[in-house]
């Protein structure tokens, strides 16, 4: 389908089947425990897709579930954590310690700049971040690996002397290479059938991830009909020309939060952290909550109205005020 098509709405399974393949290079939006594209991630796990090459800045739940389910071979990442629920993502940690996952470490800003470089169509962007650190010196992906994969740049990064002498009181900068994922998954509050997107609250690096990507699958809380998003279009962050598929998935970020719609579910995230620590329990978790449900709607039904009502966002604050998060 053309990116200029006016109706890109499709079922989630079809969008995943069309745009996510074994071994493909994939980016996911959101941040730690907020607006992760969980419905899409669960669909990928159920589809049995393997050997993904993941690009994220600070992702938590989505990354950990993809890794836990064995979908991921390599990850370029700044931070794998789910806030207070798992300071380091547990399946992420286990996989690395077991040598099952290849990792390339960057900082959050560097990953964001890499997406921005992809979106801008330049091979790199500069920052002063990481000078003098092991992020510069230690490369998770060897030069050999980099040479063997045409989708990877030849270098993790490079340090450049400022060609403008000391302009900006800066003697040198770190250049980080652009990322152009095969596909990016985002969950947003509002999208229309063509794919125009409106994100409320923080946008993290979703916009850069979206625009850097060859293909873009958007799940949304609200599918806006007609011209609704053309009013005050300066509030839209992603125009439809970047989008390949639009899927209407209420609660599509659950169990992570979606500002002004629902909070994260502390009960789910805590139970997940407990299960993730133990291989047996983790298998049970997957069987019950991922493989054991047909789709995201079924998961939400299984969680039940009472719990879902409990995390409903308060319209004033955008989160579930006074939610028991202990």
């Amino acid at each position, binding site marked *: 389908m053309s990116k200029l098509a006016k109706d890109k709405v499709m079922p989630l399974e079809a969008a995943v089947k069309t745009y996510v393949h074994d071994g493909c290079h994939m980016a996911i939006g*959101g941040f730690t425990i907020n607006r992760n594209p969980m419905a899409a991630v669960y669909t990928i796990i159920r589809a049995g897709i393997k050997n993904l090459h993941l690009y994220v800045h600070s992702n938590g739940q989505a990354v950990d579930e993809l890794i836990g389910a064995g979908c991921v071979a390599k990850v370029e990442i700044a931070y794998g954590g789910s806030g*207070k629920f798992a300071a380091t993502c547990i399946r992420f940690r286990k996989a690395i310690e077991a040598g099952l996952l290849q990792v390339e470490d960057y900082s959050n800003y560097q990953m964001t700049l890499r997406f921005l470089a992809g979106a801008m169509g330049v091979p790199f962007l500069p920052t002063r971040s990481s000078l003098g650190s092991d992020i510069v010196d230690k490369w998770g992906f060897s030069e050999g690996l980099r040479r063997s994969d045409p989708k990877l740049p030849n270098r993790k990064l490079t340090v450049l002397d400022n060609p403008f002498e000391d302009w900006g*009181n800066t003697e*040198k900068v770190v250049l980080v290479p652009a990322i152009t994922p095969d596909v990016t998954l985002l969950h947003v509050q509002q999208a229309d059938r063509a794919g125009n997107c409106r994100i409320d*609250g923080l946008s993290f690096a*979703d916009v850069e991830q979206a625009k850097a990507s060859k293909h873009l699958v958007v799940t949304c809380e609200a599918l806006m009909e007609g011209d609704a998003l053309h009013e005050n279009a300066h509030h839209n962050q992603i125009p439809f020309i970047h989008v390949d598929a639009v899927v209407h998935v209420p609660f599509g970020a659950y169990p992570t939060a979606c500002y002004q719609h629902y909070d994260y579910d502390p009960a789910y995230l805590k139970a997940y952290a407990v299960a993730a620590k133990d291989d047996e329990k983790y298998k049970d978790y997957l069987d019950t909550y991922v493989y054991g449900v047909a789709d995201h709607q079924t998961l939400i039904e299984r969680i039940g109205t009472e719990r879902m009502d409990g995390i409903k966002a308060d319209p004033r*604050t955008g*989160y579930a005020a006074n939610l028991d998060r202990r």
Partner: protein
Amino acid sequence: MDYTLREMMTVVAAREIKNDDIVFCGTGISMLAAMAAKSINAPDCVIFFETGAIDAALEEIPMAVADSRVMYHTASSGGLLDAFATMQNPTTGQKVIGILGAAQIDIFGNLNSTVIGDYFAPKTRFSGSGGGCDVASFVPRSMIFMQHEKRKFVKQLDYLTSPGHLDGPDGRRKAGLPAGGPELVITNMAVMRFDDTTKQMYLDGVYPGIEPQAVLDQMQFSVDISRAREVLPPSAGELAILREKCDPQRLIL
């Protein structure tokens, strides 16, 4: 006055924050310190998260820097690009004080939050830099929360995630970093600062009832303890604000 060490650490950090500071917070105790500062000694300081929230009005303590609680009633809610540019920017960045934490720290305040053991076959993997390396690279002042344990105050980091003073007074300049670096380390026993000349850590203060030697016993490297004084414990008022206003559910404390 009864207080926990965590409360002590929070209050010590809060006291470092000034009214004209933009405070970069991570998850956990650093958020609580910023909330406490805003309620106690620096009502006009700006709380700011790498996720893009600037001047968030924290009515409840967030469980992550991406928690929707940081999105409420901000001055602006952008994204990561906005946040890190604010810190790298020579005008706004000069106002930022960073609050960091780590698994390991060395005598120059360099931090490891990536791995224990060999980077290529780690014994323990941590979350990684996140925004830590960025903040540590950019801002003129930062403070670091640590647990005082021998395996954490190390002679040699297993991985240098976030630059402190690197190898000494000229370290940042040689590496190409802006001037700055960590100002203090707040632990469960003491407050360490960095000598103006050597940029090495020294013991600045110990908590009531703790001997300087006991602090040294929890470190792989030795530091000057001659300047140590006793740190003022939290007041009743400070504690009340912490417990009743900042973290009534005791999610962090």
